[in-house]
């Protein structure tokens, strides 16, 4: 008996909720540093702050042991410009990453990543994370360095010859990080969703003095009083995707990725930028085939693609060491489509594992895929079912599963405005990982979390006592419990679908002032007429309902930011019909949005507002000792 329906069939009744219900009960926790989100950035922030000798509390909506986009695993430590085999200068690499997005990258966090992610990796090794081929399992594989036993990835190499990406055994990381948190005395509150940032006297825009939360299993209300708070939760997911029964694998991230941090920061009055940026979700597992399952992901380094008759395609999933003249997946696929229609290539395509040298096949299948995010269960399932990479070609789903609709989008890259301390525009509030306005990988989250932790700890030493407003807590408590106080109303899934539909219609492929305004009106109608009827049957569904409210707020922020940018931008995948000129010079700037006294305020910051990366990084980190010493 393992499913709900089997239980009912056998017992004649539904199972009783297995956890004690503690609605309307509350727990107050006082700490120096509060970390919101226990993923990669959050664990590193907690560890780094705790090492400075301050009290740290970590709030995690799921379970810290495996939570976060990088929780199950990670196969590449990217942009490790300071590693001893790297052929690039970290400061120059950070400049390149920042400017590579038309200047819309977050220079501060990229500089931190490039300067410190190698130090972060070495610390991870001390905690028990595996980063080297110490048992000589992959001796002979290209890119392996005998002295350090690092496995350098060919990623970037055929084109840049950089050695900045290291292959790692990321399934070992999260348990090691959690263990280190516990060893350092970090108080971990798993299954607690942070719901609101608390500000001094409850004033929007004032110093952040902690947060409220609610337990996802018991419904208990939590009040965290903290001198400094670090937001390390996820960015917004599923804004444009109607999740019904396929919610778990509709997106790159689980449904729990609902932009709670951004929504909380907005309500508290923090300034955000690049919130208008979005991109078409090219991979959308669920509607399409799940990512790693079909030779269609960045982990498939060196795997050549062939057609159904074994004819090599002029394209690879991810370039390998010698594949200098082939396109990466997605680029040049329209030309291949034409050839398919003319009968020159036969569908489906396959990843040709058997044609690879054995050691290269082994490193891709048994290391990269097993270590990357959710890949291990895929490899294990295939292996148990008889897949033999020495004999079998893995099917690829390019073309046969179709293209993504322009309406299937993801909010990517927007986040909190920060300074060189990763401090936001609110006193006492810091940010790391995907809360920053930058695309980033596992090492980005780790390095920025680690940095924010030490800066927040330094702030704590100077900061006065945190005083929580009882009125603000009362208002938030009422908001949090509203869905369980009602006896009937709308289910979280339906509300989510309604929000996503509004975003698909009014803020996706076709962008105009009038569509944005209809979108905002529609979201307001949803907020007033439907969100106010949200009904939750238990603490789990209460959490999902509150996530809907985060998604709704996130959608509203996106529309406000979209209205504010009266220009199109190639770099932001932002194409307005009413302002078609791409990237006009006067609009080459960061548009910022925030709330003050409940009203939306639009501002701007110049591109490169952080100044010279190298000089400013060094000026703000004089006491830092790392592997990289600036020439």
């Amino acid at each position, binding site marked *: 008996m393992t499913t709900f329906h089997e239980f*009912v069939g056998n017992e004649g009744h539904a*199972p*009783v909720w297995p956890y004690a219900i503690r609605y309307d009960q509350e727990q107050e926790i006082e700490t120096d540093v509060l970390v919101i989100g226990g993923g990669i950035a959050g664990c590193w922030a907690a560890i780094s702050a705790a090492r400075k000798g301050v009290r740290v509390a970590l709030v995690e909506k799921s379970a810290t042991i495996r939570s976060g986009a990088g929780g199950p695993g990670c196969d590449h430590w990217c942009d490790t410009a300071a590693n001893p085999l790297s052929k690039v200068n970290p400061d120059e690499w950070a400049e390149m990453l920042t400017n590579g997005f038309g200047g819309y990258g977050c220079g501060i966090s990229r500089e931190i990543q490039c300067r410190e992610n190698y130090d972060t990796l070495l610390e991870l090794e001390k905690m028990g994370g595996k980063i080297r081929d110490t048992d000589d399992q992959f001796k002979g594989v290209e890119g392996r360095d005998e002295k350090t036993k690092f496995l350098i990835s060919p990623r970037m190499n055929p084109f840049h010859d950089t050695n900045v990406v290291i292959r790692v055994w990321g399934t070992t990381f999260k348990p090691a990080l959690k263990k280190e948190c516990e060893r350092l005395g970090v108080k971990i509150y798993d299954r607690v969703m942070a719901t609101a940032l608390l500000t001094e006297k409850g004033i929007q825009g004032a110093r952040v003095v902690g947060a409220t939360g609610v337990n996802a299993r018991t419904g208990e209300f939590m009040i965290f009083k903290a001198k400094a708070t670090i937001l390390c939760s996820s960015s917004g997911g599923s804004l444009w995707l109607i999740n019904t029964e396929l919610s778990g694998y509709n997106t790159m991230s689980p449904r729990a990725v609902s932009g709670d941090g951004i929504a909380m920061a907005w309500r508290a009055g923090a300034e955000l930028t690049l919130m208008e940026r979005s991109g078409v979700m090219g991979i959308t597992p669920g509607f399409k085939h799940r990512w790693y399952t079909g030779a269609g992901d960045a982990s498939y380094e060196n795997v050549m693609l062939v057609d159904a008759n074994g004819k090599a395609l002029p394209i690879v999933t991810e370039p390998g060491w010698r594949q200098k003249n082939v396109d990466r997946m997605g680029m040049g696929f329209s030309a291949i489509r034409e050839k398919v229609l003319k009968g020159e290539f036969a569908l489906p395509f396959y990843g040709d594992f058997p044609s690879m040298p054995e050691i290269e096949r082994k490193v891709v299948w048994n290391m990269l895929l097993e270590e990357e995010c959710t890949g291990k269960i895929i490899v294990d*399932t295939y292996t148990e079912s008889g897949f033999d990479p020495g004999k079998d070609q893995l099917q690829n789903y390019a073309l046969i599963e179709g293209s993504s609709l322009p309406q299937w989008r993801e909010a990517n890259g927007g986040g909190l405005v920060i300074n060189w301390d990763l401090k936001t525009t609110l006193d006492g509030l810091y940010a790391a990982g995907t809360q920053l306005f930058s695309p980033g990988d596992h090492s980005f989250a780790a390095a920025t979390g680690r940095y924010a932790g030490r800066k927040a700890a330094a702030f704590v030493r100077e900061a006065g006592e945190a005083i929580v407003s009882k009125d603000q807590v009362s208002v938030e408590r009422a908001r949090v419990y509203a869905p369980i106080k009602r006896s009937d109303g709308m289910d979280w899934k339906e509300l989510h679908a309604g929000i996503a539909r509004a975003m698909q219609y009014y803020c996706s492929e076709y962008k105009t002032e009038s569509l944005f305004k209809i979108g905002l009106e529609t979201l307001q109608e949803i907020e007033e007429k439907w969100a106010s009827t949200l009904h939750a049957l238990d603490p789990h569904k209460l959490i999902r309902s509150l996530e809907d409210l985060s998604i709704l707020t996130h959608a509203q922020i996106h529309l406000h930011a979209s209205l504010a940018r009266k220009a199109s931008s190639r770099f932001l995948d932002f194409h307005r019909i009413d302002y078609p000129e791409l990237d006009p010079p006067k609009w080459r700037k960061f548009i910022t949005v925030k709330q003050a006294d409940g009203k939306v305020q639009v501002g701007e910051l110049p591109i490169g507002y952080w100044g010279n990366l190298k000089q400013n990084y060094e000026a703000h980190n004089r006491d830092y000792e790392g592997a990289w010493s600036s020439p």
Partner: protein
Amino acid sequence: MKVYAVPNVATPGRPAIFNPEICNGCNTCVEHCPMDVFIPNPEEGKCPIILHPEECWYCGTCVNDCPRPGAVKFNWPLQQRGYWKRKETGQVFRP
């Protein structure tokens, strides 16, 4: 046979299959699952109950972190099961 009135089974409805001969109800999967897909069985020592199957992210943590190999097996939904082809024979398989 008693038939109960119950809602449809969610899709997917069974992301993991427990083996009651091996599973001892330690609930490691319940505690590690990022989505709270499972709840502990009311009867101690028995396999967990799959309560929120459609929220599964397919991360595999329940199987990967299980301390008793074979106690829980992953069960890919049909439309997500990947294909492969034996190069020599052209025969197509999937899990």
